[in-house]
Protein backbone atom coordinates (compact mmCIF):
# COMPACT_ATOMS: atom_id res chain seq x y z
CA UNK A 1 0.00 0.00 0.00
CA UNK A 2 1.13 3.47 -0.83
CA UNK A 3 0.90 5.70 2.19
CA UNK A 4 1.31 9.38 1.49
CA UNK A 5 2.05 11.97 4.15
CA UNK A 6 1.87 15.71 3.92
CA UNK A 7 3.58 18.26 6.10
CA UNK A 8 1.79 21.57 5.61
CA UNK A 9 4.29 23.54 7.68
CA UNK A 10 7.44 22.33 5.93
CA UNK A 11 7.33 25.14 3.36
CA UNK A 12 7.79 22.63 0.51
CA UNK A 13 4.86 22.91 -1.92
CA UNK A 14 2.41 20.10 -1.28
CA UNK A 15 2.33 18.95 -4.94
CA UNK A 16 6.12 18.51 -4.83
CA UNK A 17 5.86 16.48 -1.62
CA UNK A 18 3.37 14.19 -3.38
CA UNK A 19 5.50 13.87 -6.52
CA UNK A 20 8.59 13.05 -4.50
CA UNK A 21 6.83 10.44 -2.37
CA UNK A 22 5.34 8.68 -5.39
CA UNK A 23 8.69 8.69 -7.21
CA UNK A 24 10.34 7.38 -4.05
CA UNK A 25 7.74 4.59 -3.74
CA UNK A 26 8.39 3.55 -7.35
CA UNK A 27 12.17 3.75 -7.04
CA UNK A 28 12.14 1.60 -3.91
CA UNK A 29 9.81 -0.98 -5.45
CA UNK A 30 6.88 -0.25 -3.16
CA UNK A 31 4.86 0.65 -6.25
CA UNK A 32 5.39 -1.34 -9.41
CA UNK A 33 4.53 -0.90 -13.02
CA UNK A 34 0.78 -1.37 -13.56
CA UNK A 35 -0.16 -0.73 -9.90
CA UNK A 36 -3.23 1.51 -9.57
CA UNK A 37 -3.05 4.85 -7.79
CA UNK A 38 -5.99 6.17 -5.76
CA UNK A 39 -8.15 8.77 -7.54
CA UNK A 40 -7.44 12.48 -7.23
CA UNK A 41 -10.51 13.11 -5.08
CA UNK A 42 -9.91 10.06 -2.86
CA UNK A 43 -6.28 11.11 -2.30
CA UNK A 44 -7.32 14.70 -1.56
CA UNK A 45 -10.05 13.65 0.90
CA UNK A 46 -7.75 11.17 2.68
CA UNK A 47 -5.01 13.77 3.08
CA UNK A 48 -7.41 16.73 3.65
CA UNK A 49 -5.74 18.65 0.86
CA UNK A 50 -6.94 20.50 -2.19
CA UNK A 51 -7.95 18.24 -5.14
CA UNK A 52 -6.28 20.69 -7.56
CA UNK A 53 -3.00 20.11 -5.72
CA UNK A 54 -3.27 16.35 -6.20
CA UNK A 55 -4.27 16.83 -9.84
CA UNK A 56 -1.22 19.05 -10.38
CA UNK A 57 1.12 16.41 -8.93
CA UNK A 58 -0.47 13.66 -11.04
CA UNK A 59 -0.29 15.81 -14.19
CA UNK A 60 3.40 16.50 -13.61
CA UNK A 61 4.11 12.80 -13.05
CA UNK A 62 2.15 11.91 -16.17
CA UNK A 63 4.06 14.47 -18.22
CA UNK A 64 7.27 12.84 -17.05
CA UNK A 65 5.87 9.47 -18.11
CA UNK A 66 5.94 8.07 -14.57
CA UNK A 67 2.22 7.39 -14.33
CA UNK A 68 -0.44 7.06 -17.01
CA UNK A 69 -4.15 7.83 -16.89
CA UNK A 70 -6.65 5.65 -18.69
CA UNK A 71 -9.68 7.85 -19.47
CA UNK A 72 -12.49 6.66 -17.21
CA UNK A 73 -10.33 3.83 -15.90
CA UNK A 74 -8.05 5.34 -13.30
CA UNK A 75 -4.37 6.11 -12.93
CA UNK A 76 -1.57 3.56 -13.02
CA UNK A 77 2.18 3.39 -12.55
CA UNK A 78 3.69 3.41 -16.04
CA UNK A 79 6.09 0.77 -17.15
CA UNK A 80 9.55 2.05 -16.29
CA UNK A 81 11.07 -0.42 -18.74
CA UNK A 82 9.32 1.39 -21.56
CA UNK A 83 10.04 4.85 -20.20
CA UNK A 84 13.69 5.01 -19.21
CA UNK A 85 15.38 3.49 -22.30
CA UNK A 86 13.03 5.52 -24.49
CA UNK A 87 14.43 8.79 -23.23
CA UNK A 88 17.46 10.32 -24.83
CA UNK A 89 20.41 10.51 -22.52
CA UNK A 90 20.45 14.26 -23.01
CA UNK A 91 16.88 14.45 -21.69
CA UNK A 92 17.70 12.30 -18.67
CA UNK A 93 20.61 14.57 -17.86
CA UNK A 94 18.48 17.67 -18.32
CA UNK A 95 16.00 16.37 -15.73
CA UNK A 96 18.57 15.44 -13.14
CA UNK A 97 20.96 18.40 -13.56
CA UNK A 98 19.09 20.91 -11.32
CA UNK A 99 19.18 18.41 -8.44
CA UNK A 100 22.88 17.77 -8.98
CA UNK A 101 23.53 21.52 -9.00
CA UNK A 102 21.60 22.01 -5.80
CA UNK A 103 23.44 19.12 -4.16
CA UNK A 104 26.76 20.69 -5.17
CA UNK A 105 25.73 24.07 -3.73
CA UNK A 106 24.53 22.61 -0.42
CA UNK A 107 27.67 20.47 -0.09
CA UNK A 108 30.00 23.37 -0.76
CA UNK A 109 28.14 25.55 1.74
CA UNK A 110 28.68 22.83 4.33
CA UNK A 111 32.28 22.46 3.13
CA UNK A 112 31.79 18.76 2.51
CA UNK A 113 34.56 17.24 0.40
CA UNK A 114 33.73 15.87 -3.09
CA UNK A 115 34.89 12.42 -1.92
CA UNK A 116 32.39 12.42 0.95
CA UNK A 117 29.65 13.60 -1.37
CA UNK A 118 30.39 10.79 -3.84
CA UNK A 119 30.35 8.26 -1.00
CA UNK A 120 26.98 9.59 0.16
CA UNK A 121 25.52 9.26 -3.33
CA UNK A 122 26.89 5.72 -3.73
CA UNK A 123 25.37 4.72 -0.39
CA UNK A 124 21.97 6.13 -1.38
CA UNK A 125 22.07 4.24 -4.70
CA UNK A 126 23.03 1.04 -2.86
CA UNK A 127 20.14 1.40 -0.40
CA UNK A 128 17.70 1.84 -3.25
CA UNK A 129 19.03 -1.22 -5.12
CA UNK A 130 18.88 -3.29 -1.94
CA UNK A 131 15.30 -2.25 -1.23
CA UNK A 132 14.30 -3.09 -4.80
CA UNK A 133 15.90 -6.56 -4.54
CA UNK A 134 14.09 -7.44 -1.27
CA UNK A 135 10.76 -6.36 -2.71
CA UNK A 136 11.11 -8.20 -6.02
CA UNK A 137 12.00 -11.45 -4.20
CA UNK A 138 8.88 -10.99 -2.08
CA UNK A 139 6.28 -13.62 -3.08
CA UNK A 140 3.19 -11.52 -2.20
CA UNK A 141 2.22 -9.33 -5.16
CA UNK A 142 1.32 -6.34 -2.94
CA UNK A 143 4.70 -6.57 -1.24
CA UNK A 144 3.32 -4.91 1.90
CA UNK A 145 5.54 -5.20 4.97
Amino acid at each position, binding site marked *: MLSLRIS*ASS*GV*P*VYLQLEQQIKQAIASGLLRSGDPLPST*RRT*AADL*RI*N*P*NTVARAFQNLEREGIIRTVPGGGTFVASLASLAPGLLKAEKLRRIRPIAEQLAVEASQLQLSPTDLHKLLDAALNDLAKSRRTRSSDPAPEGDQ
Partner: protein
Amino acid sequence: MTTFAIQTDALAKTYGLGNKKVHAVDGLNLNVPEGSIYGLLGRNSAGKTTTIRMAMGLARPTSGEIKVFGLNPAVDPERVTVLRQIGYVPEDKMLAALTPRKLLELNRSFYPDTWSDDLARKVIKRLELPLDTAFMKLSLGNKTKSALACAIAQRSRLLILDEPTTGLDPIALDELLRLLVEDCTADGRTIFLSTHQLAEIEQIADHIGIMDRGRILLEGPLDDIRSSFRRLTVTGAALPTTNPAILSIKQQPHATQYILQSSPEAFAQDLAVNGATIVESDPMSLNEIFLELCRTSEASEADREEEFA
Protein backbone atom coordinates in the same frame (compact mmCIF):
# COMPACT_ATOMS: atom_id res chain seq x y z
CA MET B 1 -9.70 32.44 -19.36
CA THR B 2 -10.17 32.48 -15.62
CA THR B 3 -13.64 33.37 -14.46
CA PHE B 4 -14.12 34.72 -10.98
CA ALA B 5 -16.60 33.74 -8.30
CA ILE B 6 -15.96 36.99 -6.44
CA GLN B 7 -14.11 40.04 -7.68
CA THR B 8 -13.78 43.46 -6.06
CA ASP B 9 -12.32 46.70 -7.36
CA ALA B 10 -11.23 49.43 -4.91
CA LEU B 11 -14.03 48.27 -2.63
CA ALA B 12 -14.57 50.42 0.47
CA LYS B 13 -16.99 50.38 3.38
CA THR B 14 -16.95 53.15 5.95
CA TYR B 15 -19.02 53.08 9.10
CA GLY B 16 -19.79 56.19 11.10
CA LEU B 17 -19.13 55.67 14.80
CA GLY B 18 -20.30 58.89 16.46
CA ASN B 19 -18.22 61.53 14.74
CA LYS B 20 -15.44 59.03 14.10
CA LYS B 21 -15.22 57.18 10.79
CA VAL B 22 -14.21 53.53 10.72
CA HIS B 23 -12.74 52.31 7.41
CA ALA B 24 -13.67 48.64 7.73
CA VAL B 25 -12.81 47.92 4.10
CA ASP B 26 -10.45 50.40 2.50
CA GLY B 27 -9.71 49.98 -1.22
CA LEU B 28 -9.91 46.20 -1.46
CA ASN B 29 -8.96 44.36 -4.67
CA LEU B 30 -9.92 40.74 -4.37
CA ASN B 31 -9.92 38.03 -7.06
CA VAL B 32 -11.47 34.67 -6.15
CA PRO B 33 -11.13 32.30 -9.16
CA GLU B 34 -14.06 30.01 -9.81
CA GLY B 35 -13.29 26.43 -8.77
CA SER B 36 -10.75 27.41 -6.13
CA ILE B 37 -10.66 26.93 -2.39
CA TYR B 38 -9.82 30.47 -1.38
CA GLY B 39 -8.69 31.34 2.15
CA LEU B 40 -9.10 34.98 3.23
CA LEU B 41 -6.75 35.45 6.14
CA GLY B 42 -6.60 38.36 8.49
CA ARG B 43 -6.50 39.42 12.12
CA ASN B 44 -9.58 40.44 14.06
CA SER B 45 -11.26 43.48 12.48
CA ALA B 46 -9.18 43.21 9.28
CA GLY B 47 -12.44 43.63 7.32
CA LYS B 48 -13.13 39.98 6.43
CA THR B 49 -16.72 39.79 7.65
CA THR B 50 -17.63 43.20 6.17
CA THR B 51 -16.32 41.99 2.80
CA ILE B 52 -18.38 38.81 3.03
CA ARG B 53 -21.49 40.78 4.01
CA MET B 54 -21.05 42.95 0.91
CA ALA B 55 -20.73 39.81 -1.26
CA MET B 56 -24.03 38.61 0.22
CA GLY B 57 -25.73 41.97 -0.36
CA LEU B 58 -26.11 42.41 3.41
CA ALA B 59 -24.07 45.61 3.39
CA ARG B 60 -23.76 48.29 0.71
CA PRO B 61 -20.32 49.40 -0.47
CA THR B 62 -19.47 53.03 0.34
CA SER B 63 -17.47 53.13 -2.90
CA GLY B 64 -15.85 50.75 -5.36
CA GLU B 65 -17.33 47.61 -6.80
CA ILE B 66 -18.03 44.01 -5.87
CA LYS B 67 -19.17 41.34 -8.33
CA VAL B 68 -20.29 37.79 -7.57
CA PHE B 69 -20.31 35.63 -10.72
CA GLY B 70 -20.19 38.94 -12.57
CA LEU B 71 -23.36 40.24 -10.89
CA ASN B 72 -23.88 43.06 -8.42
CA PRO B 73 -25.19 41.66 -5.11
CA ALA B 74 -26.26 45.11 -3.89
CA VAL B 75 -29.13 45.59 -6.37
CA ASP B 76 -32.26 43.62 -7.23
CA PRO B 77 -32.91 41.54 -9.24
CA GLU B 78 -29.24 40.57 -9.60
CA ARG B 79 -29.07 39.97 -5.84
CA VAL B 80 -31.66 37.19 -6.04
CA THR B 81 -29.66 35.37 -8.72
CA VAL B 82 -26.51 35.75 -6.63
CA LEU B 83 -28.07 34.53 -3.38
CA ARG B 84 -29.57 31.48 -5.07
CA GLN B 85 -26.03 30.32 -5.88
CA ILE B 86 -24.41 30.92 -2.49
CA GLY B 87 -24.31 28.75 0.62
CA TYR B 88 -23.38 30.90 3.61
CA VAL B 89 -22.20 30.12 7.12
CA PRO B 90 -22.18 33.42 9.04
CA GLU B 91 -19.80 34.18 11.86
CA ASP B 92 -22.48 35.03 14.43
CA LYS B 93 -24.88 32.12 14.38
CA MET B 94 -27.95 33.65 16.05
CA LEU B 95 -30.64 31.10 15.45
CA ALA B 96 -33.08 31.63 18.34
CA ALA B 97 -35.54 28.89 19.32
CA LEU B 98 -35.16 26.57 16.32
CA THR B 99 -33.64 23.11 16.49
CA PRO B 100 -31.04 21.94 13.95
CA ARG B 101 -33.71 19.65 12.42
CA LYS B 102 -36.09 22.57 11.86
CA LEU B 103 -33.31 24.74 10.48
CA LEU B 104 -32.39 22.01 7.99
CA GLU B 105 -36.04 21.62 6.91
CA LEU B 106 -36.31 25.37 6.44
CA ASN B 107 -33.20 25.51 4.26
CA ARG B 108 -34.33 22.45 2.32
CA SER B 109 -37.51 24.27 1.31
CA PHE B 110 -35.50 27.31 0.13
CA TYR B 111 -33.24 25.33 -2.23
CA PRO B 112 -35.39 22.56 -3.75
CA ASP B 113 -33.30 22.39 -6.94
CA THR B 114 -29.90 21.71 -5.43
CA TRP B 115 -30.57 20.36 -1.89
CA SER B 116 -29.33 16.82 -1.14
CA ASP B 117 -30.87 14.83 1.74
CA ASP B 118 -28.09 12.25 1.44
CA LEU B 119 -25.47 14.91 1.89
CA ALA B 120 -27.34 16.44 4.85
CA ARG B 121 -27.43 13.02 6.54
CA LYS B 122 -23.75 12.47 5.83
CA VAL B 123 -22.75 15.81 7.38
CA ILE B 124 -24.95 15.22 10.45
CA LYS B 125 -23.39 11.79 10.97
CA ARG B 126 -19.80 12.83 10.36
CA LEU B 127 -20.00 15.92 12.56
CA GLU B 128 -22.17 14.17 15.19
CA LEU B 129 -24.76 16.93 15.22
CA PRO B 130 -27.64 16.53 17.73
CA LEU B 131 -30.82 17.29 15.77
CA ASP B 132 -33.46 18.00 18.38
CA THR B 133 -31.81 20.29 20.90
CA ALA B 134 -32.94 23.92 20.78
CA PHE B 135 -30.26 26.37 19.72
CA MET B 136 -30.32 28.25 23.00
CA LYS B 137 -29.06 25.03 24.64
CA LEU B 138 -26.52 24.11 21.97
CA SER B 139 -22.80 24.69 22.34
CA LEU B 140 -21.01 27.10 20.02
CA GLY B 141 -19.47 24.16 18.14
CA ASN B 142 -22.89 22.57 17.53
CA LYS B 143 -24.29 25.87 16.26
CA THR B 144 -21.40 26.02 13.82
CA LYS B 145 -22.10 22.42 12.75
CA SER B 146 -25.80 23.18 12.13
CA ALA B 147 -24.95 26.11 9.88
CA LEU B 148 -22.35 23.99 8.08
CA ALA B 149 -24.80 21.12 7.52
CA CYS B 150 -27.30 23.52 5.92
CA ALA B 151 -24.73 25.20 3.72
CA ILE B 152 -23.06 21.97 2.56
CA ALA B 153 -26.33 20.12 1.82
CA GLN B 154 -27.45 23.09 -0.27
CA ARG B 155 -24.70 22.19 -2.81
CA SER B 156 -24.27 25.77 -3.93
CA ARG B 157 -21.98 26.95 -6.70
CA LEU B 158 -20.21 29.14 -4.14
CA LEU B 159 -19.83 28.24 -0.46
CA ILE B 160 -18.94 31.16 1.82
CA LEU B 161 -17.71 30.24 5.28
CA ASP B 162 -17.02 33.02 7.78
CA GLU B 163 -14.76 31.60 10.48
CA PRO B 164 -16.09 28.06 9.93
CA THR B 165 -13.93 26.48 12.61
CA THR B 166 -15.33 28.44 15.57
CA GLY B 167 -15.92 26.11 18.53
CA LEU B 168 -15.07 22.90 16.64
CA ASP B 169 -12.95 20.29 18.40
CA PRO B 170 -9.98 18.76 16.50
CA ILE B 171 -11.96 15.66 15.39
CA ALA B 172 -14.89 17.72 14.09
CA LEU B 173 -12.45 20.09 12.38
CA ASP B 174 -10.71 17.19 10.64
CA GLU B 175 -14.08 15.78 9.50
CA LEU B 176 -15.07 19.22 8.21
CA LEU B 177 -11.91 19.47 6.09
CA ARG B 178 -12.63 16.03 4.64
CA LEU B 179 -16.26 16.96 3.88
CA LEU B 180 -15.22 20.16 2.18
CA VAL B 181 -12.70 18.40 -0.06
CA GLU B 182 -14.93 15.38 -0.73
CA ASP B 183 -18.31 17.00 -1.26
CA CYS B 184 -17.92 20.72 -1.94
CA THR B 185 -15.33 20.99 -4.69
CA ALA B 186 -16.73 18.86 -7.55
CA ASP B 187 -18.05 20.39 -10.80
CA GLY B 188 -16.01 23.59 -10.53
CA ARG B 189 -17.63 24.73 -7.28
CA THR B 190 -15.88 27.39 -5.21
CA ILE B 191 -15.23 27.59 -1.46
CA PHE B 192 -14.43 31.02 0.00
CA LEU B 193 -13.56 30.98 3.66
CA SER B 194 -12.29 33.55 6.10
CA THR B 195 -10.24 32.64 9.11
CA HIS B 196 -7.38 33.47 11.40
CA GLN B 197 -6.70 29.76 11.98
CA LEU B 198 -3.96 29.24 9.43
CA ALA B 199 -2.75 25.67 9.80
CA GLU B 200 -5.86 23.88 8.55
CA ILE B 201 -6.47 26.40 5.77
CA GLU B 202 -2.92 25.95 4.55
CA GLN B 203 -3.85 22.32 3.88
CA ILE B 204 -6.96 22.72 1.78
CA ALA B 205 -6.72 26.16 0.20
CA ASP B 206 -5.13 26.64 -3.22
CA HIS B 207 -5.56 30.43 -3.24
CA ILE B 208 -4.83 32.82 -0.41
CA GLY B 209 -5.55 36.46 0.29
CA ILE B 210 -3.95 38.10 3.30
CA MET B 211 -5.94 41.09 4.50
CA ASP B 212 -5.03 43.77 6.99
CA ARG B 213 -6.86 46.98 7.89
CA GLY B 214 -9.30 46.73 5.00
CA ARG B 215 -6.71 46.07 2.31
CA ILE B 216 -5.06 43.08 0.62
CA LEU B 217 -1.40 42.70 1.54
CA LEU B 218 -0.86 39.65 -0.62
CA GLU B 219 -2.95 37.48 -2.92
CA GLY B 220 -2.25 34.54 -5.19
CA PRO B 221 -1.95 30.78 -5.62
CA LEU B 222 -0.63 29.32 -2.37
CA ASP B 223 2.18 27.40 -4.08
CA ASP B 224 3.44 30.59 -5.77
CA ILE B 225 3.34 32.45 -2.46
CA ARG B 226 5.23 29.67 -0.76
CA SER B 227 7.98 29.63 -3.37
CA SER B 228 8.39 33.45 -3.35
CA PHE B 229 9.09 33.70 0.37
CA ARG B 230 12.30 32.58 2.02
CA ARG B 231 14.34 33.25 5.13
CA LEU B 232 18.06 33.69 4.46
CA THR B 233 20.74 33.94 7.10
CA VAL B 234 23.84 35.52 5.62
CA THR B 235 27.32 36.58 6.71
CA GLY B 236 29.53 38.97 4.79
CA ALA B 237 30.43 42.61 4.39
CA ALA B 238 28.50 45.36 2.62
CA LEU B 239 25.28 43.37 2.36
CA PRO B 240 22.48 45.04 0.39
CA THR B 241 19.72 46.73 2.40
CA THR B 242 17.51 48.00 -0.39
CA ASN B 243 16.13 45.59 -2.93
CA PRO B 244 12.53 44.98 -3.92
CA ALA B 245 12.97 41.32 -2.97
CA ILE B 246 13.57 42.21 0.70
CA LEU B 247 10.56 42.29 3.00
CA SER B 248 12.52 42.76 6.21
CA ILE B 249 16.06 42.63 7.59
CA LYS B 250 17.14 41.65 11.07
CA GLN B 251 20.69 42.21 12.30
CA GLN B 252 21.93 39.37 14.46
CA PRO B 253 25.27 39.37 16.35
CA HIS B 254 27.21 37.55 13.63
CA ALA B 255 24.83 37.43 10.73
CA THR B 256 22.05 39.18 8.87
CA GLN B 257 18.63 37.65 8.45
CA TYR B 258 16.63 38.50 5.36
CA ILE B 259 12.95 37.77 4.82
CA LEU B 260 12.53 37.68 1.04
CA GLN B 261 9.20 38.14 -0.72
CA SER B 262 10.09 37.54 -4.38
CA SER B 263 12.60 35.59 -6.51
CA PRO B 264 14.67 34.38 -3.54
CA GLU B 265 17.00 32.27 -5.73
CA ALA B 266 18.13 35.25 -7.80
CA PHE B 267 18.74 37.30 -4.66
CA ALA B 268 20.75 34.50 -3.02
CA GLN B 269 22.80 34.03 -6.18
CA ASP B 270 23.62 37.76 -6.26
CA LEU B 271 24.77 37.61 -2.66
CA ALA B 272 26.98 34.61 -3.33
CA VAL B 273 28.52 36.26 -6.41
CA ASN B 274 29.36 39.31 -4.25
CA GLY B 275 31.23 37.16 -1.76
CA ALA B 276 28.65 36.72 0.98
CA THR B 277 28.13 33.34 2.66
CA ILE B 278 24.63 31.96 2.96
CA VAL B 279 24.53 30.18 6.29
CA GLU B 280 20.92 29.09 6.11
CA SER B 281 18.11 29.24 3.58
CA ASP B 282 14.71 28.08 4.82
CA PRO B 283 11.26 28.00 3.28
CA MET B 284 8.57 29.67 5.40
CA SER B 285 5.21 28.34 6.51
CA LEU B 286 2.07 30.32 5.75
CA ASN B 287 1.88 31.23 9.43
CA GLU B 288 5.36 32.78 9.35
CA ILE B 289 4.59 34.62 6.11
CA PHE B 290 1.37 35.98 7.62
CA LEU B 291 3.12 37.19 10.79
CA GLU B 292 5.94 38.87 8.84
CA LEU B 293 3.56 40.63 6.45
CA CYS B 294 1.28 41.94 9.22
CA ARG B 295 4.25 43.11 11.31
CA THR B 296 5.90 44.86 8.38
CA SER B 297 2.66 46.54 7.41
CA GLU B 298 2.11 47.71 11.01
CA ALA B 299 5.66 49.05 11.24
CA SER B 300 5.29 51.09 8.05
CA GLU B 301 1.95 52.41 9.29
CA ALA B 302 3.58 53.47 12.59
CA ASP B 303 6.32 55.27 10.63
CA ARG B 304 3.71 57.20 8.71
CA GLU B 305 1.88 58.21 11.89
CA GLU B 306 5.14 59.45 13.41
CA GLU B 307 5.74 61.64 10.37
CA PHE B 308 2.40 63.33 10.97
CA ALA B 309 2.98 63.78 14.72
